[in-house]
């Protein structure tokens, strides 16, 4: 445990990627294989069932410290992180610190709490709180509460593993994907076993950066393939050993949410892996992302849902053909194979259209009209590009259309969590309607640290009322809110729901009377369709 706690602390205290890689490499080489496996699982964000609720933890720490529950709750709200809050509250420096168990042992003990009574759970937790140091209590709480976020990206883990065990990075990336379970496997099996044993395993996705240069700098138009960028879920369809698996880009197995794709067994050759977009396509019309979300939210999909919200796959690329990994082939060759295997006139699967263009100006016009196709912009891919791992610059670019935007008035503010605890960073905005301001969306981020401080000071000086952590403020500040999509919604007071709302800029030049109206917003919906 101590070794892992030290690792966490050191990772937390450096901003340098190289230093993080070195720390992790040293850990992988010196910790036990079991602990290393857990370290990987925790840091890449594998989630486990919580055996204990946050409320229970707060109650027990209130009990232990003789503090009222509301005070523990206030502390949690201000510190932002429950594990950290409890570490500061529960730590006592008079007890003996003598828990010498390793990470693996503690995790197994925590997992076995699942079937215990609340009293047993409490006794277990309190025993640990008494015997651990403050840093250890923090990590222990994190293990219990099931969420583990550190400033370590998967890329860093992969690099560290690659150096430590002398395995190629993209091979490790592939091995870490998929639904391996640290309770059921071990480090050797994960890293060194033959990968074909696990038929469900997807390839790491190749992700594009947003286009940053002038189009002309990309060179010849004939070197580039342009496609629409669809607003669905990026996914992989895997057909191996007579079985279909569907993976989302978030590395979640979503086969059961889309049972219709089972039929693809009849239409695709075995030993195929496709990259594409899962969308809802009804009578040849692409429905908005909201409809897709309804499908994702359901564990069991009924026939009725499938009829109302039929899913389809728009294939962008082929990664495995005749059971061979073909990611190193140039895109033009992969595209030829793809065109050959995608059946025509099939409702379930479609080939992503190649856009014909001869000049960059022509493409620009197409890009600007892409919303009429319900696309969110274009993708540009170099014809010679291989299918790479992760987000890489150069060969692939995404070229999104400008988002919608509207000027709105700040009406409520809430304190942030974690990095921004103590600052008012979460805002709610309103638009004019019949002479009143009507709340219509929340929006985060998009402001600089300086601006956040400024808004924070404004909120403190202009609070009208406090509702728990939320404050209503004098309407005075105007912000431009950008968003990607918009739809009618019964659940929202304003009657509309936005997709990806964010603050584009602070309109210090505008007074609240110049903010937009709800009608202005609703007009955008009709443009959308």
């Amino acid at each position, binding site marked *: 445990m101590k070794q892992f706690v030290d690792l966490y602390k050191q990772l*937390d*205290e*450096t*901003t340098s990627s190289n230093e993080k890689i070195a720390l992790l490499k040293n850990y992988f080489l010196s910790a036990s294989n079991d602990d290393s496996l857990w370290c990987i699982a925790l840091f890449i964000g594998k989630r486990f069932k919580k055996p204990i609720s946050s409320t229970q933890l707060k109650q027990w720490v209130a009990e232990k*410290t003789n*503090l*009222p529950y*509301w*005070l*523990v709750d*206030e*502390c949690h709200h*201000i*510190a*932002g*992180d429950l594990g*950290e*809050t409890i570490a*500061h*509250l529960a*730590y006592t*420096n008079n007890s003996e610190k003598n828990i010498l168990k390793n990470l693996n042992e503690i995790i197994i003990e925590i997992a076995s709490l699942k079937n215990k009574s609340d009293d047993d759970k409490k006794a277990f937790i309190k025993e640990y709180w008494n015997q651990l140091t403050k840093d250890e209590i923090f990590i222990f709480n994190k293990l219990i509460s099931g969420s583990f976020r550190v*400033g370590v990206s998967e890329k860093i883990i992969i690099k560290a593993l690659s150096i430590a065990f002398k395995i190629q990075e993209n091979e490790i990336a592939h091995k870490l994907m998929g639904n391996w379970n640290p309770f059921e496997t071990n480090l050797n099996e994960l890293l060194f076993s033959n990968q074909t044993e696990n038929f469900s395993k997807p390839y790491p996705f190749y992700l594009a950066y947003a286009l940053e240069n002038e189009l002309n700098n990309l060179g010849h138009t004939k070197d580039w393939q342009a496609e629409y960028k669809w607003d669905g879920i990026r996914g992989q369809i895997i057909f191996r050993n007579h079985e279909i698996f569907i993976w989302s880009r978030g590395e979640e197995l979503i086969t059961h949410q889309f049972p219709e794709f089972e039929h693809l067994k009849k239409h695709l050759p075995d030993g195929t892996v496709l990259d594409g977009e899962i969308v809802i396509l009804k009578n040849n019309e692409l429905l908005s992302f909201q409809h897709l979300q309804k499908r994702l939210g359901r564990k069991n999909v009924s026939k009725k849902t499938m009829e109302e919200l039929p899913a389809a796959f728009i294939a962008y690329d082929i990664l495995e053909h005749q059971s061979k990994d073909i990611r190193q082939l140039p895109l033009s060759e992969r595209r030829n194979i793809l065109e050959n295997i995608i059946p025509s006139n099939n409702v379930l699967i479609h080939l992503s259209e190649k856009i014909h263009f001869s000049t960059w100006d022509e493409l620009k016009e197409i890009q600007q009209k892409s919303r009429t196709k319900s696309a969110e912009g274009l993708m540009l891919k170099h014809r010679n590009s291989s299918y790479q791992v992760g987000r890489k610059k150069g060969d692939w670019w995404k070229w999104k259309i400008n988002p919608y935007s509207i000027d709105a008035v700040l009406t409520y503010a809430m304190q942030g*969590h*974690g*990095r*921004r*605890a*103590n*600052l008012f960073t979460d805002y709610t905005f309103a638009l004019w309607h019949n002479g009143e301001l009507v709340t219509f969306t929340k929006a985060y981020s998009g402001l600089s*640290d300086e601006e956040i*401080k400024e808004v*924070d*000071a404004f909120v*403190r000086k202009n609070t009208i009322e406090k509702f728990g952590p939320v404050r209503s403020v004098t309407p005075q500040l105007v912000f431009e809110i950008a968003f990607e999509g918009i739809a009618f919604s019964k659940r929202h007071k304003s009657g509309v729901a936005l997709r990806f709302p964010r603050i584009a800029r602070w309109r210090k030049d505008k007074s609240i009377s110049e903010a937009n109206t709800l009608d202005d917003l609703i007009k955008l919906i009709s443009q959308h369709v």
Partner: protein
Amino acid sequence: MLLEFTNKGIYCPQADVYIDPWRTVDKAIITHAHSDHARWGMKHYLCHEKSKAILHHRLGKEINVETKKYNEPFTINGVGFSLHPAGHVIGSSQIRVEHKGEVWVVSGDYKTECDGISDAFEPVKCNTFITECTFGLPIYNWHPQIDVFNEMIRWIKQNEADKINSVIFAYALGKAQRIIQNIYPYVEELYTHGAIENTNKILRESETNIAPTILINKESDLKKIKGKVIIAPPSAQDTPWLRKLEPYKTALASGWMTLRGARRRRNIDKGFVISDHADWNGLNSAIKNTGCETVIATHGYTEIFSKWLRQIGYRAIAEKTQYEGETADISNEIA
């Protein structure tokens, strides 16, 4: 009421005198020389003798300053006053006010742990205690300073071995000298930024013992400054002055460093939890030791802290002041 909260500051009507006012008044008693407590424009200032030089440095040579020693009684319009050590920074005082048998104490900023350079906090019996509560939440529990300084020295030694400078950000009056006094036996040379050196100079002139430090200026041979300790104010972060001292690691010494989020937000390599304010236990024990019935909380988590005090049996209210630190932002931990 013996003391009132007005829009100019804490006011004693019988004596016609203000304590730490934030607007221009005739007569001001100043708890300590931090800029949010000692403001410009008063006709007459009264403070502890050790605050005088800094007060002149900050507010001008021409201001009219009268000084007192700790525990030296004086009267204004029949109201009895005296200053008592607050342990916050050099010269910091609690103000005791007595009239017709009723005693109020204004804590100013204080801490209960002795830091080795300020006179140690002294509990003063009173009926009403006006307390700060910058860190008035039970998550704020300081470790003994010796443990923190040991950790700091280990960090410095590691950087020294890596030939990397250790830049420690600390507030110019108080925190900086506290660090200097506690680490100088373990390091060969201590370098300072101009803002820190100015304060050191003034304190040395007024006969406060501060270990020798070396100012970094245009004439300094930067090649020699490798693997050294540099004390700088937080405002020096991301300045060209600091960039010349690369390679370095940064640390911030502040009570706010308790929370990981606060450290991340400041983009600092290392946080040392050292504060010149009382922690949760310090606040609670200080209040208990005054034997008071009424507490007025200012300066910090006033609402939460006074609610807590009411729950454990005090008459307690929260009052708004213009002392900083309420924004809970590290850059404002002037206090």
